[in-house]
């Protein structure tokens, strides 16, 4: 594969060129929280401060709240109206962990019934990856097969090589996008070598490790170990931080808003951490906190791999960084009993 490169100071020009025809999203903190937001057309300061966003890039495809359709009641009955989001977009700067997360949850949204909202946004978006240079101490991506400075889950991958970015064209979609950019040059062998060194160096900076060998089997074995799960769940406060902000959590809720004779159906993020999530009128299979905690852990590391052959975690570390009580998934998984407990 031939590689290209761009000087960091030309990133503004590159984005500017793209933003003439496409909507460009970049890491932003304008709204008071770091997230992927529409580029303002000049600021490339994120290249300095950006480590990873608090709101994962999944929000570009599965927003926290999205309109599904609107309805109106006339004399001849109900009329439904879709307003599909056909915006052609670039998401610039997605980290390899978050890019992998998209590939993981693609399975859910394309499986048997295709989800039109998610799939159209995925199709209309070019993902541009940006290598990590400074992983958090809560990151453990390397344990899940994600490399912090390389990714094949994007259309173009930018790797930081000091004053420049080395660019790998992963897909044709990415290649096309780059074709017209005059600020992009051909990379040299020396650049490739630099990138290679950088990739290895950043990988080595990820110090938190998680042993995922046999994790699915171990969890299966301790599924009914109530004592273990109660102990593990004790300090959890049942908020939705770790799930809503997880790049591989995709659960959603659907609800209607009505005003007079018209209204809107929305879907929004939901979390298995909430008791109401599985609440039925007469009973709730996961009313107890430990059952909800178990569901969260087992879904990611046992059930999802059973169904899709991949663990639903990319080691982005958000759940560790943002948890109100420092409930640390890596510690929890390390504490899963290796043997099946004696039956009580």
């Amino acid at each position, binding site marked *: 594969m031939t590689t290209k490169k761009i000087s960091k100071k030309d990133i503004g020009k590159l984005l500017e060129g793209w933003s003439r025809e496409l909507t460009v999203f970049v890491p932003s903190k304008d709204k*008071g*929280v770091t997230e992927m937001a529409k580029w303002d057309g000049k600021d490339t300061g994120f290249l300095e401060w950006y480590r990873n966003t608090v709101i994962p890039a999944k929000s570009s495809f599965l927003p926290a*709240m999205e309109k599904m359709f609107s309805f109106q009641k006339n004399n001849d009955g109900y009329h439904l109206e879709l307003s599909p989001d056909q915006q052609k977009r670039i998401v610039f700067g997605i980290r390899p962990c978050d890019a992998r997360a998209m590939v993981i949850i693609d399975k859910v949204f394309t499986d048997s019934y295709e989800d039109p909202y998610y799939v159209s946004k995925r199709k209309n978006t070019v993902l541009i990856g940006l290598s990590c240079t400074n992983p958090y101490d809560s990151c453990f991506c390397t344990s899940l097969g994600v490399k912090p400075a390389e990714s094949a889950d994007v259309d173009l991958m930018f790797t930081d090589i000091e004053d420049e970015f080395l660019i790998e064209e992963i897909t044709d979609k990415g290649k096309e996008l780059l074709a017209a950019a005059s600020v992009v040059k051909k990379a040299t062998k020396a650049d490739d070598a630099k990138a290679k060194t950088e990739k290895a160096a950043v990988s080595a900076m990820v110090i938190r490790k998680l042993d995922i060998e046999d994790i699915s089997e171990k969890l299966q074995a301790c599924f009914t170990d109530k004592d273990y799960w109660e102990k593990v769940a*004790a300090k959890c406060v049942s*908020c939705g931080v770790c799930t809503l902000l997880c790049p591989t959590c995709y659960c959603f809720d659907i609800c209607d808003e009505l005003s007079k004779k018209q209204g809107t159906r929305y879907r929004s993020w939901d*979390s298995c951490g909430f008791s109401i999530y599985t609440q039925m009128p007469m009973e709730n299979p996961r009313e107890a906190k430990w059952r909800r905690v178990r569901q969260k852990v087992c879904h990611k590391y046992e059930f999802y791999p059973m169904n899709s052959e991949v663990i639903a975690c990319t080691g982005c570390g958000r759940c560790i960084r943002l948890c*109100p*009580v*420092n409930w*640390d998934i890596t510690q929890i998984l390390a504490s899963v009993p290796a043997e099946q407990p004696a039956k009580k």
Partner: protein
Amino acid sequence: MEQELRKEARKLLEEGKVDYIIGFAPGSLKFSTTPLITEEKEEIASLVINSFVVNNLAKFLTEVPGRIGIVAKGCDSRSIVSLIQDNRIARENVIIIGVPCSGLIDIVKVEKLVGKDRDEIDDIALQGEKVAVTVGGGKTELPTKEALFDNCLSCEFPTPQEYDILIGEPINATCNRELGQEKMKELEGMTPERRWEFWKHQFSRCIMCYACRQVCPACFCEQCFVEETEPQWVLPVPKWQDNLIFQVIRNIHVAGRCTDCGECERVCPVNIPLRSLTKKMYGLVNEMLNYKAGTDKNAPPLMTAYEHEEAKDLIR
């Protein structure tokens, strides 16, 4: 202090005076701690007390069964008293291990001041009037009042109000009530329109994770009004209108219980300045009704009591 704390906690478990100890253990991130809820003596060795014991452990009192020994800072002890007032817990089932607190370090403030993230900082040490921060070998000294949580600055009760065992010497409140009120004062100085715009902007990024409610020891409803479906008071989608209503009603619901401990603001993943709400409500309750949450375990809960003459200028 930690040694004494561990000794006392171990004794409580050994003597069978409590079934569980709730305290703090070292966290898995730098400058962090994590709640420790245990019935095992071996785990007592990991109990810690330092400038990062941020959680309000009173939250767990209503969940953990049996008799409980709980480590409590001044602010936590008030939440415990408030739970006793509301009959959520029985005083005799709780052994309060009081820990006088000279203030907790707000890691977010330190991060901003030194321009580095938590994991990039090597050391933070609270040394009286100064906080020494080491980053990459270089040392920066910050005035303590710039590095503590806003609430610690205006803390009225650094020593627990209610305790069975006190670890260390009581600390007198020396902090100034006026400190840490800047954000609220700034808001009060705005026109109503600007204030509303401010809150609209803040709540437009709420993702409805309910961390604020879940960590709050005063939020103990079996079913929160936002989860009611008939009538459905607010939509279960993160629209700013509904988020704002949720937060206003939450503040009214916890009025007289909220000790303004600030946990809600600390845990908010999208940085909504919730303390500027709780602080206001705390102040209103104090000024209008002369009531301070969690200072008297025998007082009736605020909303169940009344005086014959009050709020006269508001309702005529």
